[in-house]
């Protein structure tokens, strides 16, 4: 199946996306955030919590005087490492219990501080590489089933219950397990600590929880002879830290969108832009596939109207990802099957949209989200809408396939819901395995015309955005009908300009640059 696409329009869209990203990228280069700095510390091995369960990384960054902070936490922390000769993790613990304060080491020269950090930067990156290679080795040993990769969520709030549910889902055929975060975690300006057994509508994303789940999935992967992937959420106030933590615990994917937090969580846009960049650099290095959140445009507004916005967001996400050094193979652009099931020929529209994305982003592991908004308590009907979603996915060669739940409108999935959902996907994708290969689309027909309209609408939108600038465009509610001002929203106070001599040694290293103050 192939749409005839106006390739020059696609090129124009890419050029517009680049024009849109360029000024933002300049802003990013000139700023940092508290979460970026905490991520740097975490990469050095700073972990654990201090008094009141405040993570050590937060304690350290919060204690930095403004001027110090603007040069990056690494420098101040490096002074401590140089002076104490401690392993960074141990130094973190010592600071947490009040044995040291970074202020104590103010006298250490920059060069000594950076010199002391150098081996730790290298060993941290070596560790990430090991995790990445481990993944590659396991994937070679336990190959996955061909895509669409079936992805299901677990969300009990209790990591141990989630573990049982995840193992059960893997046995039933799931290839990717997502642990949904507890509601509101994206608005916490810290990453909670330790294994957790209570959450609200989800389970906290913590390093310990990541580890517990990864171990369980490795075990079931071995049993099943196929590698089961693990994913979680980065977007939010702690994008870079989650990216660091996920890399350490060999998560395979992360929800990571350059604008989701802004539009759908009222996180400050500057904060998000800066955070997404560093988090994606880490994702790129650790081989983590990002999943973007275009589906959110569709759950809050009409899915037919919003298709151009989805495509525009995909172009922007792609552009920002490229600018963070991500190869296409790691850019899981999002879309969703959210058109009103009552619309005549709605299925054709969905096929058009999914195929359009497939052809415009041929090397991206597209993430396809299931029907949610129009699901109702009629589980029988819902199961059918999911079936056509499954069919569209296999026809258009989507990569990451979130299995729809027949109980979507009712509760977070029961064990059986997940099993029925996977059964649905497996049945449809097997019985129609090569259907997409066997059909062609009528030139100028309903499907092609719809794809043309979406592409044209996208170009027009990108054009307006480029004209006014991305931040102004968001301020003018050009995306998702949501208006956000550049200095409004959560986490703005955690954004700060980089002073001269700012150092983020990981950023430098990942770019292949030397790091100097």
């Amino acid at each position, binding site marked *: 199946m192939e749409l005839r696409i106006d390739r020059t329009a696609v090129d124009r869209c890419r050029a517009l996306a680049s024009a849109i990203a360029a000024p933002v990228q300049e802003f990013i280069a000139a700023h940092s955030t508290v979460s970026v700095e905490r991520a740097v510390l975490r990469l050095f091995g700073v972990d654990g919590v201090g008094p009141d369960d405040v993570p050590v990384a937060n304690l350290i960054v919060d204690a930095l005087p403004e001027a110090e902070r603007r040069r990056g936490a690494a420098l101040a922390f490096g002074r401590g490492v140089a002076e104490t000769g401690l392993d960074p993790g141990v130094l973190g613990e010592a600071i947490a219990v009040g044995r040291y304060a970074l202020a104590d080491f103010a006298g250490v020269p920059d060069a000594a501080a950076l010199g002391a950090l150098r081996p730790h930067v290298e060993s941290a990156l070596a560790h990430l590489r090991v995790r990445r290679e481990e993944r590659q080795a396991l994937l070679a040993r336990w190959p996955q089933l061909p895509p669409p990769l079936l992805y299901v969520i677990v969300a009990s709030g209790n990591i141990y219950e989630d573990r049982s549910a995840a193992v*059960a889902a893997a046995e039933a055929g799931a290839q990717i397990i997502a642990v949904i975060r507890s509601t509101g975690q994206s608005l916490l300006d810290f990453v909670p600590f330790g294994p957790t057994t209570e959450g609200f509508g989800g389970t906290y994303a913590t390093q310990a929880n990541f580890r517990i789940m990864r171990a369980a999935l490795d075990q079931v992967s071995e049993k099943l002879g196929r590698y089961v992937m693990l994913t979680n959420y980065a977007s939010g106030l702690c994008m870079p830290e989650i990216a660091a933590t996920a890399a350490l615990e060999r998560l395979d994917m992360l929800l990571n969108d350059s604008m989701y937090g802004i539009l759908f969580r009222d996180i400050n846009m500057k904060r998000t832009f800066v955070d997404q960049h560093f988090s994606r650099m880490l994702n790129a290095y650790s081989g983590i596939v990002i999943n973007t959140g275009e589906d959110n445009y569709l759950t809050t507004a009409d899915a037919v109207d919003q298709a151009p916005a989805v495509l525009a967001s995909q172009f922007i996400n792609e552009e920002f990802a490229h600018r963070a050094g991500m190869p296409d193979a790691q850019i899981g652009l999002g879309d969703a099957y959210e058109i009103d099931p009552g619309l005549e020929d709605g299925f054709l529209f969905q096929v058009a949209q999914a195929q359009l994305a497939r052809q415009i982003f041929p090397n991206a592991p597209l993430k396809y989200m299931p029907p949610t908004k129009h699901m109702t308590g009629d589980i029988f009907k819902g199961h059918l809408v999911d079936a056509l979603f499954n069919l569209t996915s296999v026809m258009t060669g989507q990569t990451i396939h979130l299995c729809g739940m027949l109980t979507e409108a009712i509760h977070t999935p029961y064990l059986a819901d997940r099993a029925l959902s996977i059964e649905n996907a497996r049945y449809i994708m097997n019985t129609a395995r090569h259907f997409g290969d066997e059909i062609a689309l009528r030139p100028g027909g309903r499907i092609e015309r719809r794809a043309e309209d979406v592409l044209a609408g996208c170009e027009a939108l990108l054009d307006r955005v480029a004209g006014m600038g991305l931040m102004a465009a968001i301020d003018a509610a050009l995306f998702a009908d949501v208006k956000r001002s550049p200095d409004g929203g959560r986490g703005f106070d955690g954004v700060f300009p980089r002073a001269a001599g700012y150092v983020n040694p990981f950023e430098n290293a990942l770019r292949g640059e030397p790091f100097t103050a």
Partner: protein
Amino acid sequence: MTGRLIKPYGDTMNDGKVQMSFTLPVEWSETADEAARQLAGKMGFADVQVVEGRPIAGGFSFFVLYASTPQGVDLETIHAPSVRTHAMTMEEVDAYVLDRIGRKLRVAGACIGTDAHTVGIDAILNMKGYKGDYGLERYHSFETFNLGSQVAPEDLVAFTKLHAVDAILASQVVTQKGSDLKNFTELAELLEAEGLRDRVVLVCGGPRVTNLMASELGYDAGFGRGTLPSEVAAFIAVTLAHRLREETRV
């Protein structure tokens, strides 16, 4: 007064047929099928047929059953007054308010507690409305305040006081662990404590809300799935007009 007992209907009156499915935390076996059958028996069903039983994961089996229940309900004894009965168009509501009340009504809506599902309350309030039915913002007779999501009940009460709100619209979509009931109750109690309860029309809504549940919680009305803005508008207008008339009488 009692009427005839209503029982589930498969293909014959009073056959009591019910479809069921559930998971048991056991490995699948014929014994598991039999356990499912006996379990349904213990639930009081007769003619239990386990039509499907199979493993869905290590240690878990899934079952589909058909069975007959001996239970019935007497429809005459069930009181679940519908609140979606005052059918009026936007124009009619506007005219009605002008005529009976003579001023704009102040309506404040919010998604309360930690709930961030604003699509439902927006559907009622936003200009655009829902399924072709305009939202309250478009009515000439209402001044609307959409406070958005995750509004603490006390904040909503403070707002009500400050802006002399006539009608409060509280939404709850997340129902896990009874959070919806908790939040609705808290809101009603706070209003009561502040002495505001009788001054406002208090309305709740959400996909699991029923009018019966709302009245049990002390609300004036509750609106469930598929609610149209005009239904809510008409209810507010009529209820306030009646109250004013009663107050005038007193």
